[in-house]
């Protein structure tokens, strides 16, 4: 894990010439050990600075969300560290009294949950078919699904806005959900098919010998054994939809808009709306961050797998 010495790439103050260890027994000279100790210090300081750099923006938002609008206008958020008395939950209280925001929060849930469940269910059915069923043109169909993996959502905004308009669901939550299902499916099918195909054949055959039909096989063997992949997919899709702004910006109206759309409307007058934006943005982050910390492993694999979208 820990390599003995430090690359001279980042800490510039490292003595450039690190004496190469003598070719014989790997006993390092005292000078090398000292220089490596100093470099280790530089490395640690560098990484701590980077970590600080990475948390500071989020801390700024969090601190701002717990301050008075007048305090925000008068001084920087870092003042809360010297004057903790400034902290107040007023912004949150008034945010939750704002009907636009609370109904947007509810809408976010009503969009995200069905869009996630549908993608998982429909994707798992198709993934199962692609992994374990024989039908004509199976490989050809799967190639088509893989081809659709990288289609940008932008290409469907105009056609689906017209189609949904014709169907009378433009501006409705159903339209937003449908859009996310369509664009979530290629990745879902791809991921689940690959995972299901790894399930040992013997397990399926044994179940089949017990007289299980397709539906029972699917429900009692595939879904339980595919749970890890389903969890990763579910988390990825959930976050994807929860965090989406563009699709909802086009397909929702003032009644059906999720939190992201409600908040973006406030960014036009950024300075004046910071007491709505800061707590609002933080509320929109709470669920994703909770998912992140609760399911780190599935989260990472899900995000890694789906990042291409």
């Amino acid at each position, binding site marked *: 894990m*820990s390599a003995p010495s430090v690359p001279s790439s980042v800490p510039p103050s490292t003595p450039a010439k690190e004496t190469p260890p003598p070719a014989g027994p790997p006993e390092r000279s005292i000078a090398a050990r000292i220089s490596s100790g100093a470099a280790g210090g530089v490395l640690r300081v560098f990484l701590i600075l980077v970590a600080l750099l990475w948390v500071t923006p989020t801390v700024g938002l969090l601190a701002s969300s717990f301050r008075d609008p007048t305090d925000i206008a008068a001084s*920087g958020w870092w003042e809360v560290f010297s004057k903790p008395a400034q902290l107040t939950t007023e912004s949150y209280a008034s945010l939750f009294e704002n009907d636009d925001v609370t109904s947007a929060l509810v809408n976010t849930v009503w969009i995200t949950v069905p869009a996630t469940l549908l993608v998982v269910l429909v994707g798992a059915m198709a993934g199962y078919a692609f992994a374990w069923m024989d039908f004509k043109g199976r490989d050809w169909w799967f190639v088509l699904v893989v081809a659709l993996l990288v289609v940008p959502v932008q290409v469907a905004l105009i056609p689906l806005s017209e189609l949904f308009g014709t169907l009378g669901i433009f501006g409705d939550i159903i339209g937003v959900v449908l859009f996310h299902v369509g664009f979530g499916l290629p990745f879902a099918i791809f991921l689940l098919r690959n995972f299901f195909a790894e399930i040992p054949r013997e397990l399926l055959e044994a179940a089949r010998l017990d007289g299980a039909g397709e539906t029972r096989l699917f429900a009692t063997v595939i879904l339980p054994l595919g749970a890890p992949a389903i969890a990763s997919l579910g988390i990825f899709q959930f976050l994807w939809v929860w965090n989406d702004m563009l699709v909802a910006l086009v397909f929702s109206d003032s009644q059906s808009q999720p939190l992201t759309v409600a*908040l973006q409307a406030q960014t036009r007058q950024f300075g004046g709306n910071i007491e709505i934006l800061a707590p609002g943005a933080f509320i929109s982050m709470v669920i994703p961050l909770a998912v992140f910390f609760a399911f780190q492993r599935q989260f990472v694999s899900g995000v890694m797998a789906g990042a291409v979208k």
Partner: protein
Amino acid sequence: MAGGPAGPVPPAGKRKSVMGTRPWVAGLFLLPALVLLGALVVYPIGYSAWRSLFDADGSGFVGLDNYGEVFTNDATLTAVKNTAIWVAVAPALVTALGLIFAVLTERVRWGTAFKLIVFMPMAISMLAAGIIFRLVYEQNPDQGVANAVVVGVHDAFADSSVYPNARPSQVSDLKASGGGAFTSRGTVSAGTPALLPLVGIAPNKLPDDPADAKAPTAKAEAGRISGTVWLDFKLGGGGEKGAVDAGEKALKGIKVEAVRDGKVVASASTGAEGTFTLPKSADGAQLRLPAANFAAPYNGIEWLGPTLVTPAIIGAYAWMWAGFAMVLIAAGLAGVDRNLLEAARVDGANEWQVFRRVTVPLLAPVLVVVLVTLMINVMKIFDLVYIIAPQPTQDDATVLALIMYNASFGGGGNFGLGSALGIILLLLVLPVMFVNIRRLRRERQR
């Protein structure tokens, strides 16, 4: 990892289905997915391609004119240029950061905690990240942390003036002499105290609780010239203009130069009581208060102004995605054979050489995957630009996806141009689509 660079696909080609499924059962399992994909993804591609050949409201056939407009119209050309900048800069920057972090965190015990911190922004929405960075980039150094740091550093190295907007009072001999400086018309001589009254600042706005001004002592010390710079204004009125009255405040730290024939022959700064003393050599010179005394305070960098707005947003993007690159590269690094690195060290390579000649080449496949994934991602960047770029500079920061949205939904109403932009975005990712399919085919033949 899937998607663009498809992960390992288990061979399926010749495998028989376990159960000899009847075709209609397979059809039932597939039907929902195929219907949804057909209606929501495949059909829109075809419709967009067709619609892009028609004008704004779809009534007239215009051929490829919409595509021509993308590459001739100034607004869309800016978007093309900015998207090119994004694709050229952001993936390389993010991958480099990820590589550095992945290699360095291997060497500390709390590497996992570090990774957690850097990866965290991947969880939040681009909207939230956009709001976070709007706050970071706020112009006012008392609001935006970026400018607070910049101004702090700047002021630590350069003296900042404390009296912006101050100016000589009416009765003063000082007159503006260009560039913000003020020069006396008359000359000074030893024994005559120089009075330099200023106005234009509220006494309660003076920094550091200033002392009362003190009139210079008329008695010349060995031919030296003395004088006072003070705020010739008394709260509540009263006092004689041009004279140092009791209770009028001193202006500390003002630079006074003695100028003769355009050359500075001596200079001094006022003390706590506003008084200054110039050496004998200044006798007969004019007095000048240089512009530095009155310069507006340094206000930091205009992050979201027309020139820096795109780099600033790319910075926010790097903050979001460096964790992604880092985790993928770290996974690749875990698979690198340590003996190869050790062998290079034994051969006398220093750490930089090991990194440059062994580690990076071994990681090349992962680096390509990361780069390609980020490129696809960056081509479609929308939310960050939409949220961070303020209205006045949004046109300077615009990208293809943003102009696509604006042209079709954000007031433009031009579905012809919008469709063409959508198709262009699709064409941009087409090479990756083919790579995915080829990879799939290859894996299957194995």
